[in-house]
């Protein structure tokens, strides 16, 4: 037990995490490419045309994984931020910082593809549906996190302040989600019901899962690349960085 603890904390230091991340990145890129090709093949050539929505539904293979990842990345980000705050491990905070742009990208992608999907299916770019609205708010939370980190010059303070904001956000996400949901049912504004999932062909589900895996692997690869850049930037005064860059 004692040994395993030491093993894990070893990678809490930027110096030992940097090469580890470098070794992992190609594998995650490869996995992302593999899952992506398989997922795209299923979603374009294998999955049947939807009876009601025609070919246009195929955007689901990007839209749903992006939405899942946007929510999942926030949780992961808050986890690393909390870990960094509790254990004072620098790499944890850097991970949180590295994940935020990818999470924001996923949220933006989900909103954008949702709009492209909504236009042909419902005839409108945007409805004030509970899911769309909470996705938009999640996007705002990412922006706030990144803006706060960017505004604070001292990286240690930026890490801790960002961690508190991420944790406050995580507590608030379920509250925001349910409040938006109840707000939506109270108003009965749109007749579109997104929560009732249509029964899905098995191949569609597979395509979606493969695409979600591809997005997941991509997010890890990109976050690791970004965390390496952050490590280099913050540790630029140290001896090992000078050797690593050479």
């Amino acid at each position, binding site marked *: 037990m004692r040994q395993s603890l030491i093993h894990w904390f070893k990678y809490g230091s930027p110096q030992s995490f940097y090469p580890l991340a470098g070794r992992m990145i190609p594998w995650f890129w490869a996995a992302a490419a593999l899952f992506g090709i398989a997922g795209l093949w299923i979603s374009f050539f294998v999955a049947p045309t939807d009876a009601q929505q025609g070919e246009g539904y195929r955007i689901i293979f990007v839209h749903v994984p992006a939405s899942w990842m946007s929510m999942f990345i926030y949780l992961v980000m808050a986890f690393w931020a909390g870990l960094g705050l509790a254990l004072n491990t620098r790499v944890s905070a850097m991970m949180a910082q590295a994940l935020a742009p990818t999470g924001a990208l996923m949220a933006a992608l989900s909103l954008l593809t949702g709009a492209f999907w909504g236009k042909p299916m419902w005839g409108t770019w945007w409805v004030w549906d509970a899911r769309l609205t909470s996705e938009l708010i999640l996007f705002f939370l990412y922006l*706030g996190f990144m803006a706060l980190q960017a*505004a604070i010059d001292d990286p240690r303070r930026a890490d801790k302040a960002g961690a508190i904001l991420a944790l406050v956000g995580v507590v608030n996400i379920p*509250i925001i989600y349910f409040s938006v949901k109840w707000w939506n049912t109270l108003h009965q504004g749109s007749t579109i019901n997104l929560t009732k999932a249509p029964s899905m062909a098995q191949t569609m589900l597979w395509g979606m899962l493969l695409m979600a895996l591809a997005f997941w692997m991509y997010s890890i690869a990109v976050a690791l690349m970004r965390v390496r850049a952050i490590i280099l930037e913050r540790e630029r005064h140290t001896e090992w960085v000078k050797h690593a860059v050479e």
Partner: protein
Amino acid sequence: MSAFLATVRRDLLLALRRKSEVLTAVFFFVIVTSLFPLGIGPEPVLLKKIAPGILWVAALLATLLGLPRLFAADHGDGTLEQMALSPSPLGLLVAGKILAHWLLCGLPLVLLAPVLGLQFDLDASALGILTLALLLGTPLLSLIGAIGAALTLGVRGGGVLLALLVLPLYIPALIFGAGAVEAHIAGLEVGGHLSLLAAMLVLAAFFAPWATTAALRIALE
């Protein structure tokens, strides 16, 4: 407890010595709500429908306006560091500051809201619900806002950043606060909305001073 009350009294006294700062936020609230009929048109049916939302959004923004002041002056002259060093827990003192902030920035809005509601042709019972909802909601806004104020303390472009951090977190309060009044106008039961507002208030009253204290300690490092 005496430290808590002393902090409240001190902040109130300081604010009363500089009344204009408090009054600015209140007049901001009045002006913003009066701008909407000018922009939308004087149609009473429409105004009555949008009144709860407008009053709530204006209350949100007016609260936001007062937030940077919550810790800035004390941080500037070093009082905050003395508070952090004092024998009474910082969380208690922070809670006192938040209460004082609500008394100065939130309570005037609650008291003014019924008057402004008349501009929008709300009837007496709707005004009562509006006041009650704001009474439950504005302390919640102060509590959540305090976390943002502590996080952005002494940060470049703090005011705008504060809005970006805090406004998304205000959304549940807005939904249930304005929703209570709308539900009442529509003839529905409002108990659920008010209970949820009260529940969020209790939750925030427990956690927000704690999170604010943690954020302040980071800012003071």
